[in-house]
């Protein structure tokens, strides 16, 4: 066991997989010699050589396409897209190709490619360094979608994804790289070494896809969330003294419907929280599933806590971010007696 922040945990996952499996290679913009703009691949090119940790041209579409080609030639590429906001030039290859190769060839070809990309706001990145586009990818049949909220999960999930024979888009909430964050930017930053999930096994281990983590058990309300909002939601519920059950989904596709529904059946109330824009965000699917499966158990309408339906503005970062106040408002509403 060692203290790791989320970056170090991700680096460790890639380090282990590079060491374990010669078919694993890394590729992306600035990831090689430099170690990545967020330092996630720091030291790996030195250790594994520039033929396995490969700097690429600035062409997200080309990166995804080339990685697909490599993956059908027996490699397991891990491609970094520098910011999730820049994944769209690769969107066609992801949707039309990566997601479809197994299906259209009846399993004869498949593309075990993992696309890592930092997402979310809270670092003054403005509208082009803050987006959370995960919801879009969950609508694309054939792609798995993962978002860890802490170092321990990040490492175990990334190893699982690299070993998985299906393609995965792996979102990393960059605001959590260096420590958990409860949504209050005025408080001093908390590092991961003070948090139990910052204790990370140095060796190989996996965290399964499709298995949500119950961060806190509770009886009064279920909060379904993932990524940055895990800690914000927990802090808001704690401040209100609510006995909330908090579910960190970790993987959006496949989705752990059982854990969600078991919880909501127990609590009878549900709040869904994510940083992404509200309209047609992943929260809508979560809300729909809960409504469909747990309708008769619901004592109040499910509430969504989300970013607003605008781009993420540089000057109004904290007005945009769904902080504790927004979570509290939703919790208050959901707790109102019928």
């Amino acid at each position, binding site marked *: 066991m060692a203290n790791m922040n989320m970056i170090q945990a991700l680096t460790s996952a890639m380090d282990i997989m590079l060491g374990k499996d010669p078919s694993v290679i890394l590729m992306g913009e600035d990831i090689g010699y430099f170690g990545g703009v967020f330092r996630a691949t720091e030291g790996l090119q030195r250790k594994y050589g520039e033929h396995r940790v490969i700097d*690429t041209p600035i062409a997200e*579409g080309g990166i995804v*396409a080339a990685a697909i*080609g490599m993956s*059908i030639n*027996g490699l397991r590429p891990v491609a970094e897209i520098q910011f999730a906001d820049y994944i769209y030039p690769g969107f066609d*290859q992801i949707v039309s190709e990566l997601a479809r190769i*197994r299906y259209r060839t*009846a399993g004869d070809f498949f593309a075990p490619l993992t696309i890592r990309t930092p997402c979310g706001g809270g670092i003054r990145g403005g509208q082009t360094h803050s987006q959370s586009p995960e919801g879009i990818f969950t609508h694309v049949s*054939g792609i798995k979608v993962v978002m860890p909220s802490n170092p321990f999960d990040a490492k175990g999930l990334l190893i699982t994804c690299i070993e998985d024979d299906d393609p995965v888009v792996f979102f990393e909430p960059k605001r959590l790289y260096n420590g958990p964050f409860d949504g209050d930017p005025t408080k001093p930053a908390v590092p991961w070494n003070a948090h139990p999930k910052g204790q990370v096994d140095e060796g190989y281990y996996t965290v399964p896809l499709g298995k949500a983590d119950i961060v806190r058990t509770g009886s009064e309300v279920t909060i379904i969330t993932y990524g940055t909002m895990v800690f914000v939601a927990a802090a808001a519920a704690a401040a209100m003294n609510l006995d909330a059950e908090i579910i960190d989904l970790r993987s959006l596709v496949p989705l752990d419907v059982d854990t969600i529904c078991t919880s909501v059946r127990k609590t009878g109330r549900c709040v869904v929280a994510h940083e992404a824009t509200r309209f047609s965000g992943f929260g809508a699917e979560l809300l729909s599933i809960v409504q469909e499966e747990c309708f008769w158990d619901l004592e109040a309408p499910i509430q969504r806590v989300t970013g607003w339906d605008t781009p993420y503005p540089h000057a109004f970062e904290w007005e945009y971010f769904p902080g504790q106040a927004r979570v509290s408002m939703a919790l208050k509403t959901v707790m109102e007696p019928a």
Partner: protein
Amino acid sequence: MPIKSRLHLPHVPARPGEKPDFSYVQISPAGAVPRPQVNALVKDVAHLALEMVRVLDDNADAVGAWHPHLDASELQVGLRHMLLTRIYDERMQRMQRGGKISFYIRSLGEEAVSVAQGMALSPSDMLFPGYRNQGLQIVRGIPLVNLMCQLLSNTRDMCKGRQLPVMYHSKANNLFSISGNLATQFPQAVGWAMAAAIKGEGNLAATWIGEGSTAEADFHHALLFASVYQAPVILNVVNNQWAISTFQGYAGGEQRSFAARGPGYGMAGIRVDGNDFLAVYSVTQWAAERARTGGGPTLIELVTYRGAAHSTSDDPARYRAKDDAEHWPLGDPIIRLKAHMIKIGEWSEERHEALVAELEAQVVSSWKEAVTFGTLNEGPKLDSDLMFEDVFKEMPENLQRQQALMRKERS
């Protein structure tokens, strides 16, 4: 409102009712273009991108430095493959007209591209074809029945009913799956070749794209990555002059050859007579040797003509001169190779007729076998449960539930 637009629009030489005009096609005499060493520097082979490599001359003789000197048996195999491709095409087109299959795409007039290139490569080279490269399937020996079952989406369809007709693949024969989305295979082939290089393997990748599709971003990605990493890949642009109704000028062919994009990106580019079996074979061999010996990628532009409609959903009489095909200055690849073989004494009209009859019979009997596995509307049917498989390696819970729902719905 009279607009005095100054926008340039590419010239389209002959629309319906106009006289075919191929004066825009720049043709070098057969034998005229020198053949550089396979390891020549890009800057020293720049001329290859603007001239046109040709071997077969108007007298059906093979001339010049690019003459590949193939054995008679190889020529005969080439002719057979091209003929089979054409006969298969004609028959499948008729089956579509008869409602047996939903859609078909012919390669009439372009058979030399797939057949000669397929033959010049080795079976362990990985091919990323487009939808008009059925000749590659034939060269690689995919049984016609397999191809037909794909067209029929029947119980033996290699795609399990999931793809439109002509979107074949064969893992065992190193033929990658054809995509309905244009150009996507181009950079994938480069990635495949990069992986081969990383693994230290000697195989190369080859891929095909229509000249119209070179406009897609993936064309650029392919050239760029191939150039940066000097990937062992052959990038083929099949310039058959048309992209559905759109003339090649709209893909950038008016200002410069497509082959010229190669040197622009720092790789060799070769323009070749795409209806000259020998020339196509020879440039492919050159590019393959270059790639295998570490010389990097080559972009080959194969100048040919789409002899038929774009697909069974298309009617070219709406947008190009009716007798355009007949005036195509580079002739017909089958007729040209046949004439050469007769001239060198390795073929005859009689053998040709016999071969045609044999291949027609083969296509007919293959079809008879294929339909026993089902057609669109009759005979055995794929189990619709298959719809839910292969979305992922293991079927997730939501798809299991939907599969159950569908069963209920259909009962």
